[in-house]
């Protein structure tokens, strides 16, 4: 089980900020592929992956990052701090 978090418009499109996901996905990209198959709102949120950023266990990383041992994956648009 992995905690999957969504922020900003990703959260709004999917309609929830956080959920627990039962997955055997090897990488972030695999997890995205699984989520997209779930429902239209997931497919919409993950439609253009280049518009998204991902953090595994609160560290920014790439979509090909392995999920072995990961507890938390977060998806969000490019950050706008400052």
């Amino acid at each position, binding site marked *: 089980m992995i905690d999957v978090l969504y922020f900003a*418009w990703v959260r709004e499109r999917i309609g929830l900020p956080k959920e627990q996901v039962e997955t055997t996905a090897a990488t972030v990209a695999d997890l995205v592929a699984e989520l997209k198959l779930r429902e239209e709102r997931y497919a919409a949120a993950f439609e253009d992956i280049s518009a998204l950023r991902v*953090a595994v266990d*609160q*560290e920014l990383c790439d979509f090909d990052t392995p999920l072995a041992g990961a507890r938390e994956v*977060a998806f969000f*648009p490019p*950050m*706008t*701090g*400052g």
Partner: protein
Amino acid sequence: MTVRVQQAAFDLGAEVQDFATRQTQAGAVVNFTGIVRDTAAGDLDRMEIEHYPGMTESALAAIDAEAIKRWELKDSLIIHRFGILRPNEMIMMVATAAPHRVDAFEAAQYLMDYLKSRAPFWKKEFTKDGAEWVEAKLADEDALQKW
């Protein structure tokens, strides 16, 4: 070397005064303050800043640690707010203290450049016409290249 992520407003004058007066090794203090600006149309009701509790603090601490490694800093301070902010409210501030002005200036710019694109904050602007997420600027991503 201090990072604060908070919903409450901060007192810029008191923070800057306190930061500058507690320095004993640094003759140069630089401060940057970001303020909510109205839209071009002048119809901004509010800005809502969402963040990623936990990662926000660790991302800011990592950016701060990198600045301390790269420049001769005696002290640093990052304060960033989240939640609802109205026009003219202060969003965030950074402060740096160094023996020489070049270090204080460059470190403050570095903190700002990284904080813009690598700290998990997202801004949404609310006007009478609705709400829109603020889009990240290519120029902000490009700014990271120079470091």
